[in-house]
């Protein structure tokens, strides 16, 4: 999922301070799963913002709504009936959702309530870790199903570097050396000779090197 974390409250207070009535929109997908921007977090943030602004003598009205997701324009349509009289919108979705709302309601300022972080998976309850950077040309098939681009601090495709110690990355004891993990996996699969294959320099055009990316499905696009 796309993971995110709520922005510091003082930043959000400054965004909404000038307004009388805002619409706070959550998202039922990724940000719900990582407890950053779902229905519950919308309730928590609305309450917190109200109480914070009350202390400086301001009463703000916050309309709360959570969409199924914010990255499909059809769902954003639901907000049309709620937008009347609203001065500004704050979205708790990832950057994709915030921008879709911004695109739809051109005449109102739209603010992000979370910092979108990374594409990751849950290691255990309450812990999410980066797994994928969307490089556009997945090499998991040759690295034992473990990604060195997302998980190596230096994104070495022919690692490990000389700083790998006891299975940990040189930058922190909390970070696994992914090349240790890949090597262990090769051993489990009996694929040690694969290690000797040199993975050639990456063509970053499939990643962000080619500019902002788009997928067009001719069979689906109207």
């Amino acid at each position, binding site marked *: 999922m796309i993971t995110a974390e709520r922005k*510091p409250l003082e930043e959000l207070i400054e965004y909404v301070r000038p307004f009388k009535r805002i619409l706070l929109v959550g998202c039922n997908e990724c940000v719900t799963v990582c407890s950053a921007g779902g229905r*519950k977090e919308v309730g928590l943030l609305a*309450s917190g913002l109200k109480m914070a602004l009350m202390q400086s003598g301001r009463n703000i009205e916050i309309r709360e709504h959570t969409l199924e997701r914010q990255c499909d324009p059809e769902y954003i349509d639901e907000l049309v009936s709620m937008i009347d009289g609203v001065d500004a919108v704050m979205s708790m979705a990832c950057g994709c959702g915030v921008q879709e709302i911004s695109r739809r309601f051109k005449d109102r300022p739209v603010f992000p309530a979370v910092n979108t972080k990374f594409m990751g998976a849950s290691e255990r309850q309450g812990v999410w870790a980066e797994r994928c950077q969307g490089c556009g040309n997945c090499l998991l098939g040759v690295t034992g199903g473990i990604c060195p681009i997302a998980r190596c601090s230096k994104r070495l495709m022919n690692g490990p570097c000389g700083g790998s110690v006891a299975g940990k990355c040189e930058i922190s004891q909390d970070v696994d050396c992914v090349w240790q993990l890949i090597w262990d996996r090769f051993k489990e699969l009996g694929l040690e000779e694969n290690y000797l294959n040199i993975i050639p320099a990456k063509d970053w055009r499939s990643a962000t090197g080619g500019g902002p990316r788009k997928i067009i499905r001719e069979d689906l696009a109207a």
Partner: protein
Amino acid sequence: MENFEPTIVAFCCHYCAYTAADMAGSQRLTYPANVKIIRVPCSGKVDALHIVKAFEKGADGVYVAGCLDGDCHFKNGNNRASRRVEYVQKYLDEIGIGGERLEMVNMSAGMGYRFAQIATEITEKIRKLGPSPIHSMIGASCPANSDLTA
């Protein structure tokens, strides 16, 4: 503020804290009427949102009362509650209400005296801290000063 009577909300778990409150009552142990008890099946059921809303509606202090460590009827609901309370304390600091207005406490079902003691201590602590910073904006009225009598 003179004659400030704090409003305290106590989320009490059914198996321990609420039973202890009952026991305090049947033992005629007095504790301040400022404390409004909300019974929950387990302290772990108390959500961050419940706590924050309590403050939004005018509580000056909130506490979550659960079983003693290791004795939770639902295994570790009280541990989850404890971590959640810490999380909300930080949020309350961010908001400006102040994390010191929220506490996690533990007791067993038989500890009527402890229930009464904690209720009294927390009420006094909040009385000293003064009304919640948003008090004047809500215009909540202060409850009358009365003892709990049989």
